[in-house]
């Protein structure tokens, strides 16, 4: 080699440009897995959270009681299991478990599946807490005018709960962005695995991991700003316009 890099910074630059393709690919996979995992995980979390929150009344028909009872039981076990074990272990068990069961699953798909299941378990609790945080009067106001419990949930309670849940969703996404790094153990070619590969050739691990540290940081920083902006937008306007066309003269 004609000009060997000198010092950490030159090496960082050298590795970053030499393996640019690896890092770009890694960034895209990291983003893909965390975005897909988070979005699908939210949906799962919402379903599980609502199921967990639903109450049975004495007058419900028996099949409904049994069905809801089973769903609630499964939800509880699922949440406990996934919150009680590390994601890296879950990844191994799901990936190798599926392979041994004869399921030739792609590492990226397995990675998304693990992220979804993990996110769902955490989001379920957040959704439940979000629903609980809405004053019971909102639901009663809706029911009292003849709205069905489902309609009251969809039109009145959830839209309000959603507002409280958004910051937690943003947090979860940022966590997932970083947590996908553990998926290197099942061979997902996300940033961490790419850095390992890139660092190996010249035995420059420090420099290689510094490259992805910068990438992770920039991604988190950018997304954090975006989420803050969205939250601000969602807070809504502080003032309102009087409808002068409906103003009475004597008012």
């Amino acid at each position, binding site marked *: 080699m004609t000009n060997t890099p000198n010092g950490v910074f030159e090496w960082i630059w050298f590795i970053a440009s030499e393996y640019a393709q690896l890092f770009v690919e890694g960034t895209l996979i990291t983003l893909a897995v965390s975005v897909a995992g988070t979005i699908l995980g939210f949906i799962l979390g919402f379903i599980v959270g609502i199921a967990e929150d639903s109450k049975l009344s004495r007058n419900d028909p028996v099949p409904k009681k049994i069905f809801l009872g089973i769903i609630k039981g499964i939800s509880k076990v699922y949440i406990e299991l996934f919150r009680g074990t590390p994601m890296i272990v879950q990844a191994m068990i799901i990936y190798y478990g599926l392979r041994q069961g004869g399921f030739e699953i792609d590492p990226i798909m397995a990675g998304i599946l693990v992220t979804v299941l993990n996110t769902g378990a955490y989001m379920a609790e957040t959704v439940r807490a979000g629903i609980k945080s809405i004053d019971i009067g909102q639901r009663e106001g809706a029911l009292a005018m*003849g*709205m069905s419990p489902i309609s009251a949930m969809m039109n009145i309670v959830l839209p309000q709960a959603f507002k409280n849940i958004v910051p937690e969703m943003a947090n979860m996404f940022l966590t997932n962005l970083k947590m996908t790094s553990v998926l290197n153990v099942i061979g997902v070619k996300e940033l961490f695995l790419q850095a390992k590969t890139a660092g190996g050739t010249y035995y420059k691990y420090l420099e290689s991991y510094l490259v992805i540290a910068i990438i992770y940081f920039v991604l988190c920083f950018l997304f954090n700003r975006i989420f803050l902006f969205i939250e601000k937008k969602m807070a809504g306007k502080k003032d309102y316009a*009087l409808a002068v066309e409906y103003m009475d003269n004597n008012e």
Partner: protein
Amino acid sequence: MSDNNKKEIIRVEELSKNFGEHQVLRKIDFSVNKGDVICILGSSGSGKSTLLRCINQLEKQTYGKIYFDGKELGRTQHEINIYRSKVGMVFQSFNLFNNMTVLKNCMTGTRKVLHLSKEEAHERAINHLRSVGMAPFINAYPAQLSGGQKQRVAIARGLCMDPDVLLFDEPTSALDPEMVGEVLNVMKSLAKTGLTMLIVTHEMGFARDVSTRVLFMDKGYIVEDAPPEKFFTSPENARTKEFLSRYISDGERRS
């Protein structure tokens, strides 16, 4: 009931409600006729609000029956929804939908429950909001209104459903004193329209002036059921007398 002008709309039979060991309502029997404006009085814990919430089925009675328009109330969710759309409720804490403007608050029920067209629902909402003096505030969110304004919107929201009966659960108890009047005035003019109203309240003057009947509740029983003239001048029950004398002496002390 024999009188045609006095058609019965709600009848409650042996209505009882337990919260665990605690018996809040004990075999309540009474009926409401069309056009009645009934005030329900009583000290806190006497079961007034629970009675109202049972009538609207926000609480399920432990025992007893409710008849609406001559028919026993069904048990399925669907039947209860239809019944509730005809028996509106105004709450102490307003319970306006915080995620909606005043206008949407008044249109949600008519759109989602009665399936009115957008134009019809809008027209109804404006009409009723105008009658409570809140039409200029259609673009405001509940958080931007005062308590009295919120309660007037809540009343308009209830009226939009065109209910047969409107229940009021302590509608002025959460209000600052200077806002009580504006809400009571709205209710007074409603009573004049012939709307059937069932009002749990602590406003004695209002009960005396507006109601056609006054019920007094004590420890889960209705112990007095009389027209206001009789109720306030010559009540029969000892607890009622005690309650009224305390109210009168309170009033004198204040003035």
